[in-house]
Structures are given as C-alpha cells and as structure tokens.
C-alpha cells in the first residue's frame, strides 16, 4: 500500500482553493506496477462473475427441471 498526499483541490475537495489548473489536471498517477495489479484484479473479478453466472444458470436449470419439481411435491 502506497500513501499519497495530495492537495485537496487536486481531487476536487476544495473547489475554490488556490490551486492552479495544472495541479488539478495531474491528479493521482499510478505506477506501471499498480496499473498491472489493478488490471489483474479486474480480470479476476470478471472471471469470478462469469463463473457465478454459469453456476447460477446450471443451478436454476437443475432446480427447475421436472425431477427438481417432483422433489418439491
């Protein structure tokens, strides 16, 4: 975890402060490593969501199948 101290205006916290436009536009710049890790996290979340969708689909089909209905009776 890396700590970054930025002027409040740079993240829109102080809209009428004394910061110039360059500071506001610069914002937080991620390093290449941080970008790489963020990308890998995003991919992992996407894969997990896809797996969940597939799992819910299969479970729904099985639960709603005639055998499944039969068991509920």
């Amino acid at each position, binding site marked *: 975890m890396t*700590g970054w101290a930025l002027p409040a205006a740079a993240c829109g916290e102080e809209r009428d402060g004394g910061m110039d436009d360059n500071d506001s536009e610069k914002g937080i710049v991620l390093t290449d490593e941080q970008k790489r890790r963020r990308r890998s996290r995003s991919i992992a979340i996407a894969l997990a969501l896809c797996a969940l969708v597939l799992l819910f689909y299969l479970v729904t089909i099985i639960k709603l199948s005639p055998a499944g209905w039969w068991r509920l009776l």
Partner: protein
Amino acid sequence: MTDITAVDHSPETVVFAISEASVGDYVALMKPRVMSLVVFTAFVGLMVAPGHLHPVLGFAALLCIAIGAGAAGALNMWFDADVDAVMSRTARRPIPAGRVLRREALAFGMTLAFGSVAVLGLVANWLAASLLAFTIFFYVAIYTMRLKRATPQNIVIGGAAGAFPPMIGWAAATGAIGLESVLLFLIIFFWTPPHFWALSLWRADDYARAGIPMLPVVAGYPETRRQILLYSLVLAPIGASPWLFGYAGVIYGATAIAGGAVMVWLAVKIKVLGDGAEGDRAAKRLFAVSILYLFVLFAVLLIDDRLGAPGRGLW
C-alpha cells in the same frame, strides 16, 4: 477491491492509499491451506451422508463452504493484523506486509460471508446455510475476537469452528444433522488441541511476543505436553467411533485404531523427551502426522463408504 482509498482528510491535504494488492494477496486472505482441509472434510461429510444431491448442487454447496471458510480467514486477518505483525509466522501476511488495507480485508470478508451463506441456502438448504453462518460467526466473533486473546483454552473451544464443515456438508445433502455427522464433528474437535499445541511448543516465543495466551506460554511446556497426551488419548477412540457405532466398515476401523495409536505414541514421545532439540523434533513430527492422520481418516471413511462399508461396527 478498492483501488484508491482516502485515509486522511484535512482542509489542506487528502492522503490516499493506493492498493497494491495482487490477486494472490486476496487469495492469501482466505487462508487457502486451512480452506483445503475444510473443503476436504466437508466433501467427505457430503459424500457419506445418506440421500442424493445432484453433483452440480454438491459442487456449488462445497464452493459455498470453501468461500465461507475463506471469509472467516479474511475476517480473522482483518481483526488480528496487529498480532500478525509481531509474529514471525504471520508477519508476511497481506495486511501486516502493507499490501492490503484492513478495511479492504473487512469488506472482502463480509462480502464473501454473506454471499456464501445466501447462496448455500438457495442451492442446498437453510439448515446448512445457518450452520455455515454460525461457523463464520463462531470463528470470527467468539474465537478471534474473544477467546484467542483471553484464555489458553482458546483453540479447544475455537476448534469447534474447524469441526463444523463435515456437519455442514452432511446437512447440505440431507437437510438434517445425524449422529454420524456429530461423530465427524467430534473427531476434528478433539484433533485440534494436540495439532495446534504441538505447533505452539516450538512457536511459544512468537505467541508470547504477540501476547497470545497459548498453553505453553501460560501453563508451561510440561503441562502442554500432558494436555497433548490427554487429548490424544481421547481422540484415539473417538477417531474409531464411526466404526464402533456401525457407520463405517472394518477398513476404516483398522485405519482409525492404527492412526490413533500413532498419535498417542507420538504424544507419549513428546512427553518423555521433554525440552531440547529432540523434543522439538518430536513436536514437529506430531504436528505433521496429525494433519496426515485427519486426512487419511476422512479419506478412508469415504473409500469405505463407496465400497459399501464391509464389516460395520462391533455390534
């Protein structure tokens, strides 16, 4: 998984922490080694239970139990970050190493906990989901937040959390709690003290530095060795109880008796050897063998069940 988190707010500055956590760090939060034993014992509980559960539903139920265990692990690391930081065994975990924020671990753990319980309820039944919810609550709120820092009996009572998975697997398959699942619970419950106290015998300094009242720190090494032997003596017959009660066959019974004898023999050896390098080696051996003992016991129970459990029980 937060990318950028505001950690301080003042009129002049806003201090941000940028997440550098990798996917592996989030996996580590879930304690995958603990999770593997949980999944395996839950799998055996689900397989040996009477009745039939569709394989996909069974897989989904096991996934929920695994995720629930992972949630408990993440919440444990969230609460114990201060203790983990001063223990050499845990100092490299994601939170003390500074790769994951505590609040990220909390959010991650809570999301997994509620998600796993809800999905298990929908996929299997609400008894299994309730048991999973109670297990997570027990591990986090009772063991981690209370017992661990308060009493040398922490892992005895807290061991219940690790003993529930086969019962949850059983409940997922049958919708009930049978005597056999209670016996599986008892096996893990009485296995936990000799397993963890063997570890604590050569990690006592670590626990003392962190202020954790593990038995060797509070009661001393001789008392810990005595307790390991006592619990091993209780564990041996309980390990064989599924056979004694007629739930398992003679293959399981023979394995359980042999395994229990090895556990007792190693516990006696630890007590006889006492302090010193030899004693430490014996403690490490008991720790390793105890893992093998539990794995073999449950694996043979499963094989025995698949074979139709020839020679069930003594009566």
